[in-house]
């Protein structure tokens, strides 16, 4: 099959075949990253703009390295969170970047749906680098890639996603991707942070971490945002950690070769006890390097489908 999409906005709209093609292409891209000269000319002459409305050095750096390894010209445009509501509109900003020749716009935005607005109104290819509480396709694809690399498959795996499902774009993208590729997905967290309608996405919901972890092959820990405590979603981080933090003891219920993943950065002692964080370290680093390969694959596929890039 060939990739027909001009944009990669989310995993909800990708088919299992398309997701698999991204992962396969990322395998080839990973080889490029292992060379001495980590650069190929595929996107020579293409200008890629990283339009970030949230300060995310990690994600932005990963995209930037991926762009540079494909020989694209890179334009970084980082705006403060407050500029979303003040000053120039998103569309005006993006149109300016397009006028500067950006063929691909990578957008990170605190509001759900922002990349869809650009995809509808602009000619450039749009890659979603995280929108509000909605999707974070590159993170989910690199998680899928890493799981496939470690486990050799995704189909049939029991994957547990732990934490703030309500506000998590990583959770949503992972749920859609994992379910499409045949994994059995469970979500667990405090009831205030588990939207009851999420079951519509064919996942099972739990409020008790021990029950959810039973027999798990993969556990994806979500980062907990401190400000949720202030808006009465749970009483305190201490209490959150007590019920939903992963400890060696709790992990005993999981499958013997369970893989613990975290999109980073970790709140040590809150989502993960320190010793588990250390153990999970190697997987987390693999996620980081796989992230570059996956993003290279996204660029290659989008550029190949977008005619005017």
């Amino acid at each position, binding site marked *: 099959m060939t990739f027909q999409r001009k944009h990669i906005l989310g995993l*909800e709209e990708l088919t299992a075949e398309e997701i698999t093609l991204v992962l396969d292409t990322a395998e080839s891209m990973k080889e490029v990253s292992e060379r001495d000269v980590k650069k190929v000319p595929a996107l020579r002459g293409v200008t890629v703009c990283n339009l970030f409305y949230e300060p995310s050095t990690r994600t932005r750096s990963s995209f930037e390295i991926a762009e540079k390894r494909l020989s694209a010209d890179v334009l970084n445009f980082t705006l403060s969170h407050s500029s*979303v*509501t003040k000053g120039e*509109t*998103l*569309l005006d900003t993006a149109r300016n970047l397009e006028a500067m020749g950006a063929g691909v716009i990578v957008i990170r*935005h605190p*509001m*759900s*749906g*922002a990349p*869809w*607005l650009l995809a*509808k*109104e602009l000619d450039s290819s749009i890659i979603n680098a995280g*929108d*509000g*509480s*909605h*999707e974070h396709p590159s993170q989910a694809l690199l998680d899928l890639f890493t799981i496939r690399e470690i486990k050799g498959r995704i189909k049939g795996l029991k994957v547990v996603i732990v934490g703030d499902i309500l506000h998590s*774009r990583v959770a*949503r993208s992972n749920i859609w991707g994992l379910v499409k590729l045949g994994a059995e997905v469970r979500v667990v967290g405090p009831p205030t942070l588990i*939207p009851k*309608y*999420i079951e*519509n*996405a064919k996942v099972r919901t739990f409020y008790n971490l021990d029950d959810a972890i039973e027999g798990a092959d993969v556990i994806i820990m979500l980062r907990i945002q401190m400000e949720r405590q202030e808006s009465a979603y749970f009483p305190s981080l201490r209490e959150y950690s007590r019920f939903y933090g992963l400890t060696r003891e709790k992990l005993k219920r999981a499958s013997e070769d369970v893989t613990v993943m975290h999109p980073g950065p970790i709140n040590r002692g809150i989502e993960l006890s320190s010793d588990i964080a250390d153990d999970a370290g190697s997987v987390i680093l693999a996620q980081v390097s796989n992230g570059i390969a996956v993003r290279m694959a996204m660029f290659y596929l989008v550029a190949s489908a977008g005619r005017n890039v």
Partner: protein
Amino acid sequence: MSILIKGGRIIDPSQGIDETGNILIEDGVVKSYPKTTKKFEKDPDVTVINAKGKVVSPGFVDIHVHLREPGFEHKETIRSGCESAAAGGFTSIVCMPNTNPVNDNASVTEYILLKARTEGIVNVFPIGAITKGEMGETLAQIGEMYEAGCVGVSDDGMPVMNAKVMRHAMEYVQAFDIPVISHAEDKDLSGAGVMNEGVVSTELGLAGIPCASEDVMVSRDITVAELTGARLHICHVSTAGSVRLIRAAKKRGVKVTAEVTPHHFILTDEAVGQYDTNAKMNPPLRGDKDREAILVGLKDGTLDAIATDHAPHSEDEKKVEFDLAPFGIVGLETALPLSLKLVQDGVLTINQMISKLTDAPSGILNLNKGTLKIGAAADVAVWDPEKEITVDRERFHSKAKNSPFHGWKLHGSVLYTIVNGEVVYSA
């Protein structure tokens, strides 16, 4: 100058009329229902409108419109809003007070009415604010606004969260026999919500407004209305819970009325699709069960009137992130064909539908409109219930184009709108 509307199907629920006949309009009022028309047709001073095969009804009455003037003239003006109304068959519209400045005192009311007299082509009735600046704290100049011409009070869009303030408002308005009109929403429960809380909001990662946020407030307002004996009108009902609460309240004799918008009886939250800001309004489009309950409520009379909540916004304001887009859609020019769907789907008879657009809303606010009684002001709509149309926002008379129905194929087209005996719109 006289107008003869000849050979149409005259439907006037206020008189229980549904018959083919003629209407003669003279000096701005309904003069007679002549049996023969020959002598008028020969009279050069009589304009003849051939309405054969068309419906002739009282002009429609919309008790929930945002005209945006003063303050937001880039969205709509009294002039453009009236033109939009006329194009939709509306001859009387009631405008909400959330202008800038807020219509919370008689001078703003007078300004609106002056503008309406000089620039408006349909009858305009203002609603005053319940509280100063719609801030929910102290009562607005309700008595003076009533004297100046306000027909009801509402803090539409900014619900009065303080129950005691609401109680005082409901007590106070009884001196003037006007209703309190409630946009029923618990702002705390709604939080940062931008659409209905449900499967779609969960998938789109958008903060949801639960149905409970409406139900809680409808319940409170009914309770306070019961306490005070005030007339309460519930705006734009969107939930099954509201329908149930209002039905029960009516049954026990609470003086409560309710309206529903065409978008709430036609659409569900699926219409948000891929973040379509033209499907963002408050209350939000709800789920299937709510829509079904609303249809039942329309049928059994729990929901008295159809009102559009015409809420114009400029295109630039809507072409932004979903979270940032303002709530609201235009409705005046799509109300008739959308309401006719209720007739096509067997929810209402055509007479019931017309009633909910004419005498029923007029009665809620004592407007004395929505009738073709002899001697009444000649506010008439002549329309074709069969004609297929394609909704085209570029052809709206409103300044705003924010409609989720753009491109829809519907049946029902307004041919003539007559206000006080003057043709103000013809197709």
